[in-house]
C-alpha cells in the first residue's frame, strides 16, 4: 500500500534534520503501529506524508499504491486515498461541520471522476455514520471543531475518515486527550473500517490504544529512524520497560 524508502526530511526554515532515513513498508489490510519517544519524528512523518508546508524532503521517497505522493498537492494525496487524523484537529469558525464534510466528500469524488453525492444521499450516510460514533445532529451543525471537547474532535476525525473512505489512514496520536470511554468509541470506529483493502498507520505513545486497535506490526521510532520492528508483543515490551532498553540496543 505505502512504501517509504530512506526518507530524509528537514525543516524548511531551520537547518534541522528530523527524519534521517525512514524505511517502512505497509501492506494492504494491515494495521501498523509506530511508537517512540517524544521528538522522534512521528508527527513529522505524518505531516510529510500528507503534504504539510514547512518540511523539505532531502532524500528518499514515498509511494502510495505505486504513485509518488511526495510530488502531490495535499488534496491530490487525499483523493489518492491518504487520510490523516490530526493530533490537533483545526478549528474553522464559520464553516459548518456538515458543509465541510460535504465539500470534502464531493471534492474527492469529483477528483476520482465519480458523481457528487446529492444532498439527500449525503445526509443519509452522514447521519448513519455519525450515530455509531455518537455524534449528534447538534455537533454536525456546529462550526468545524469549534468548541468541541478533545473527545468530540477525535470522534469528528473518525467520522471524516468514515465518510471519505480512504485506503491509507494515518492516525496521529488519536488517543491523546481521550478518556477511556471516548477511546473505546474511537477505536470501535476505527475497527469498523478495518478492511482487506485498507491500511492503518497508528502513531501512539501508549500501548492502551493498541489494546483496542490491535496492530499486526509494531515499529519503534527514535531519532528520525525506525529502530525496531516486531509483532504486537513489542508494544507490550515498551509498555513494561520503556524505550531505554530498545534504544540502548540500537546504540550497541
Amino acid at each position, binding site marked *: 500500500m505505502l512504501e517509504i524508502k530512506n526518507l530524509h526530511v528537514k525543516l524548511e526554515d531551520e537547518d534541522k534534520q528530523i527524519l534521517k532515513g525512514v524505511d517502512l513498508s505497509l501492506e494492504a489490510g494491515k494495521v501498523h503501529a509506530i511508537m517512540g519517544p517524544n521528538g522522534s519524528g512521528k508527527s513529522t512523518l505524518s505531516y510529510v506524508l500528507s503534504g504539510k508546508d514547512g518540511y523539505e524532503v532531502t532524500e528518499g521517497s514515498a509511494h502510495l499504491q505505486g504513485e509518488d505522493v511526495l510530488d502531490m498537492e495535499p*488534496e491530490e494525496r487525499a483523493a489518492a486515498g491518504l487520510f*490523516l487524523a490530526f493530533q490537533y*484537529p483545526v478549528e474553522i469558525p*464559520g*464553516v459548518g461541520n456538515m458543509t465541510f464534510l460535504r*465539500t470534502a466528500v464531493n471534492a474527492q469524488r469529483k477528483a476520482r471522476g465519480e458523481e457528487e453525492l446529492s444532498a439527500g444521499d449525503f445526509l443519509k450516510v452522514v447521519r448513519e455514520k455519525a450515530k455509531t460514533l455518537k455524534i449528534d445532529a447538534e455537533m454536525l451543525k456546529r462550526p468545524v471543531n469549534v468548541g468541541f471537547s478533545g473527545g468530540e474532535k477525535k470522534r469528528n476525525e473518525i467520522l471524516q475518515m468514515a465518510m471519505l473512505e480512504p485506503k491509507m489512514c494515518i492516525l496521529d496520536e488519536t488517543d491523546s486527550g481521550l478518556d477511556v470511554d471516548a477511546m473505546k468509541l474511537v477505536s470501535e470506529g476505527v475497527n469498523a473500517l478495518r478492511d482487506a483493502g485498507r491500511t492503518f498507520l497508528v502513531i501512539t505513545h501508549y500501548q492502551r490504544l493498541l489494546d483496542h486497535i490491535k496492530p499486526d506490526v509494531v515499529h519503534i521510532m527514535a531519532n528520525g529512524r525506525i529502530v525496531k520492528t516486531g509483532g504486537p508483543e513489542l508494544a507490550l515490551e515498551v509498555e513494561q520497560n520503556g524505550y531505554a532498553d530498545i534504544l540502548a540496543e540500537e546504540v550497541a
Partner: protein
Amino acid sequence: MGLPDIKTNLTDARLAAQPVPQSGAWLAAARDDALARLRAMGLPTKRDEYWKYTDPSTLTEAVAQSADVFDAADEAPLYDGIDRLKLVFVDGVFDVDASDDMAPEGVTIERLADAGAADIHWAKDLYGVLEAKGQSPVERPLAALNSATATDGVLIHVTGTPSKPISLIYRHADATSDATLHHVIKVDAGAEVTVLENGPAAARFNKCMEVDVADTGVFHHIRAQGRDHERRAVTHIFGRLGKESVFKSFTMTANGVLTRNEVVLELTGDDAQASVAGACMGDGAFHHDDTVFITHDAVNCESRQVFKKVLRNGAVGVFQGKILVQPDAQKTDGYQISQSLLLDDDSQFLAKPELEIYADDVACSHGSTSGAINEEALFYLRSRGVEKGTAEDLLVLSFLAEAIEEIESDDISEDILARLEAWLMRRRG
C-alpha cells in the same frame, strides 16, 4: 476662524453645479439650515483627519466622473425569492411605474419630492435634524450637502408591523448620473420594519438616511452595494435609538471604485441594542471605507460593530470605528471588531478603531486583525481532499461569517451568502 480658501472654492463650485432645489416651507427651512452647516464646514479634503485614509476628491468635485453601467445579466437578482415592497429609483429618480403601490398596512410612504412641496410635514422633526446632530464631534459635510440638495427619496413612517420588507432598489442607467437621495424613516413605539437596499444607483451616489426608532421599535436594514465597477458612493445613516429599541444594519459590498459608508448612531434610551455589520469583498480598483460612530448616552445599552473585508489585487479596505460612552451611560456593552483578509501582497487594510469612554461601569472591547489566509486551516481542508481554490473560498466565507451572522433573517442571510459565493466563483473564473 475662516474656512480655508480651498474648501470655500470647492463648496462653491459644487453648489453651483448642484443647486438647492425649490421646496415647500418646512423642507426649504431644513435645506437652508443644512446649507449654512455646509458652508460653515466646507467640503472635505484629504488633509482632513477624518479623511486620512480615503481621498474624498471624486466625491466632492463639481462634476461626477462617469461610470459604465455594468451588464449584470448573468447575475441572479438579489432578494429574488423574498416577498417585498419594491420602490425603484433610476439614477436617483423615483420610478413610479417600476415600483409597487406605496400603501401597505402598518406604514405610510411618501416621496420626498411630493411631501417636500407641503408647508408642514411630520418629517420636519427629523429631516436634516439627525444629520445636524451627527455633525458633532466630527464634521460630515457631505451629509449636509445631501440634506441641502437631495432631489428625491422616501419618507417612511412605520406605525405597525408591515407584512413584508420595504425594498429600495437603485438602478443605474446613465453613465454620467450624479444622484443625491435622502430618506427619512420614523419607526413608532412597538413598530417593526425591515428595509432592504440594493443596486449601484448612479455613477456618483450621495445617499443619506435618517432613522428614528422610538421606544421598543425595531429597525432592520440589509444593504447590498455592488455591480458597477466604476461607481462612487458616499452614504450616511444617522440613527437615534429610543428605549429598548433595536437597530440592526448589515451591508455587503463588492465592486465599486470608491465607497464610503458612514453610520452614526446615538443610543438615547436605556436598554437599546445596536448592531452595524459589513462584509466587503474588494478586487482591483476598489476602495471601501466603513466609518462608524456609536454614541452611548443611556444606561445598559449594547452596541456591536462587526466588519470584515476580503481584499485582493490592490484593493484597499478602511475601517474607522468609534464607541463613545458618555458619562452617564453606565453598564454599556460595546463590542467592535474589524478584520481583513489580504489575499495578496498588493492589498491594504487601514484601520482606526477607537474607544472614548467616560463611564466606569462598562465593558468595551475592540479587536482588529489583518493577515493572509490561515495556512493551518487551509492544509486541514486540503488534507481532506478539498482543492486549494475551493478551500480558500470556504475560508473566505468562514472569515465573513461573523458579519453575516449579524443578519436577523435567515432567508436574507442565505441570499447574501449565495451572492458572496457567486462572487467568489466568478473571481475564480
